């Protein structure tokens, strides 16, 4: 394959990475947001403190994701964003409410704090449900039928559960004491929901798309690919097991979160393998949708220089705020 023909593949990988990082990072933010109503007054502040220094940069991965879709695949973005017009608007509503509530809840009059806390939780759940709907519609190739709508509806209920599990494991890492105990309890309850999303997507995608079916259920691919679902199942089981262990209150507090990241990574590989080389399942390939090689090369230069730098200072920021979450105070 020539370099020019490779370019759309490279950009599909970049787009995938951006979306994966977004789901992993803003996923825990949104999960923590949805857990707000279950925490008491002081705990609410700790919840916010655990994500406060990060959420802004986390959300930027979504900007990068949609940006890459727009600039690298101009002939697919209209189809995708057009078909998802209403859920996109709802997601934006949710993300706007969540983002502003972060600041308003501590800066507004004390009487209004409860309202902004509610807005924070509501925004998080609206955004998560809208994203679930979009994911459901996307993996079924943006087809319009009652079956795909039903599937999207199921995912829109289940994805918030997945985020809650991710958020709860983040809290196990970032909190201590009574709050950490509650986070473990939250994680136990969210676990079945997450397993549901995972299984649903894995079952429905091959049913909805013959291409995906052929990919997974032909020999010898079936055996070559078996490690992906097997490792995911193992990681999920390990998370459930860890939630019963007292060790995650101490030294292993990072383990459930890291295992969740592993599950997301495996799920991402599975999805990417199913869909490639389509950007709209069974309709538009990445080569049909891509920008001209000249444009992609210019952006690639920037990406090659900038992405390692972004990685480096993201790691720096996470190092600065490592350890248990403490009260957020302005410098």
């Amino acid at each position, binding site marked *: 394959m020539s370099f020019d023909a490779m370019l759309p593949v490279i950009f599909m990988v970049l787009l995938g990475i951006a979306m994966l990082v977004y789901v992993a990072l803003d996923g825990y933010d949104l999960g923590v947001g949805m857990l707000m109503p279950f925490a008491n007054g002081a705990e609410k502040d700790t919840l916010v403190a655990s994500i*406060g*220094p990060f959420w*802004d*940069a986390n*959300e*930027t991965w*979504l*900007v*990068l994701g*949609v*940006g890459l*879709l*727009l*600039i690298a695949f*101009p*002939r697919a*973005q*209209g189809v*995708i*964003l*057009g078909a998802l*017009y*209403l859920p*996109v*608007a709802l997601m*934006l*509503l949710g*993300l*706007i*409410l969540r*983002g*502003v509530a*972060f*600041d*308003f809840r501590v*800066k*507004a*009059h004390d009487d209004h704090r409860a309202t902004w806390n509610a807005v924070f939780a509501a925004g998080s759940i609206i955004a998560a449900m809208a994203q679930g709907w979009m994911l459901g519609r996307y993996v079924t190739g943006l087809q319009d039928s009652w079956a795909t709508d039903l599937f999207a509806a199921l995912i829109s209920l289940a994805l918030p559960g997945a985020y809650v599990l991710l958020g709860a494991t983040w809290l196990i890492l970032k909190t201590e004491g009574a709050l950490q105990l509650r986070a473990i309890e939250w994680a136990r309850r969210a676990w079945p929901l997450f397993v549901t999303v995972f299984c649903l997507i894995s079952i429905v995608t091959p049913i909805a798309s013959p291409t995906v079916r052929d990919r997974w259920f032909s020999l010898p691919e079936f055996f070559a690919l078996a490690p992906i679902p097997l490792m995911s199942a193992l990681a999920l089981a390990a998370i459930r097991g860890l939630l019963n262990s007292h060790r995650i209150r101490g030294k292993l507090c990072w383990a459930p979160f890291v295992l969740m990241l592993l599950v997301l990574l495996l799920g991402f590989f599975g999805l990417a393998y199913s869909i490639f080389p389509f950007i709209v399942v069974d309709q538009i390939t990445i080569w049909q949708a891509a*920008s*001209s090689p*000249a*444009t992609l090369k210019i*952006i690639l230069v*920037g*990406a090659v220089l*900038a*992405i390692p730098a*972004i990685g480096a*200072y*993201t790691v*720096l*920021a996470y190092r*600065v*705020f490592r350890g248990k979450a*403490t*009260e*957020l*105070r*302005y*410098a």
Partner: protein
Amino acid sequence: MDALILARAQFAANMSFHILFPTISIALGWTLLFMRGRWLSTKDAAWLEAYRFWTKVFALTFALGVVSGLTMSFQFGTNWPGYMERMGEVAGPLLGYEVLTAFFLEATFLGVMLFGHGRVGERMHLLATFLVAFGTTLSAFWILCLDSWMQTPAGTEMVDGVVHVTSWLAVLTNPSFPYRFAHMLIASALTVSFLLVGVSAWQTLKGKAMAATPRAFRLGLTLAAFLAPVQIFVGDAHGLNTLQHQPAKIAAMEGVWHTERGAPLLLFALPDEKNHRNNFAVEVPHGASLILRHDPDGEIKGLDEFGSAHPPVRPLFFGFRLMVGIGMLMLFSAWVGMFAARRVAWNLERLPRPLLMLLRAMTFAGWIATLAGWYVTEVGRQPWIAYGLVRTSEVASTVPQSHIAATLAMYVTLYLVLIVSYVTVLRHMAGKPAKEGPVTPQSGKALADIAEVISGSFNKRRILR
């Protein structure tokens, strides 16, 4: 209403809401860096207080800018699907570089800047503040470069209806970019100046002044007095540039229907789009020709030369006058304020109340002038999305009208609620006496640490003696 108008209204609503916040955060970032620097070099606690208060304003402003900016990036696709298909070769790299070089930088270091104190050293913290300010300015650079290219395309050619880049250097130095970039950065600085001055004036009038209030007031007023005339000069140069490259926009701004020599400057009029004339005109003879051509009998092209490819007249005509009017008012109030403040040696309590009330009324003047200016420049680009190359109607989406209308109503309601909340919370923060913060185990420990350091240095001194 047709889908195009709805899509434009929705995009305009979002852009108008969005630009309010970067307009503040671009210059406020640098202002914070200055305040922090003053605190570190003078150890004057009032500067630290100023830094802390305005950091809170910055955090709130930045959050609103981020969420509305996210909306914007989606609306490029949802509202104008043809935009990327036809102009992606220019817009793609510019937007991509904005995200890669600016967005991540500012968003990541914002956390360190806001909450990193005690976790990083003073130099790292200053560096974080610098990088946030730098990121906001860099972001303005990329997006204004793209906007300017849409106004005055250069370095590109059209092949089969699609824009192709022939020279990136020409794209990056397109004719209106230097003027627009300078005009917008100064607009941001002026907006922040009047915000600092206005909030300080409000605090003084309400008897709620903090130690930081006179510092912020003086900083804001000095900046305003210096920048208001500079902005008028830059604005004039920008106008001459527009005359050269987008004469239809100037004709609409000045209400010139028919090409004429010695065109008058209209101070006020009601442009009549049907009959191509101005009613109730109050004019300065030869004024427009003198300003735009630097010759009282210079020729100004009229709207009739552009057929139907000219922008609507009223929004430009009034938007321009609103912007210029506020600019003049800024110059006046900043200079009168400087004069009066120097006479009372910056003792705000002794400033005449009417002056304080005027400055308080000007708190958000920068917002109104900036919005008016952007309406002139963007409505003035119509009916083109890229001037002379592609029409806005050619790239609009085919989403059902009802969807656009419903989401438009949602966005507008949300934005109105958020603007009211923003101003209310700003007022609440400005009126709150500087709070030391609750004594927590952590702050208790910090106090103990400080006590130890102090006693330690005492001991050292004793030893040295």
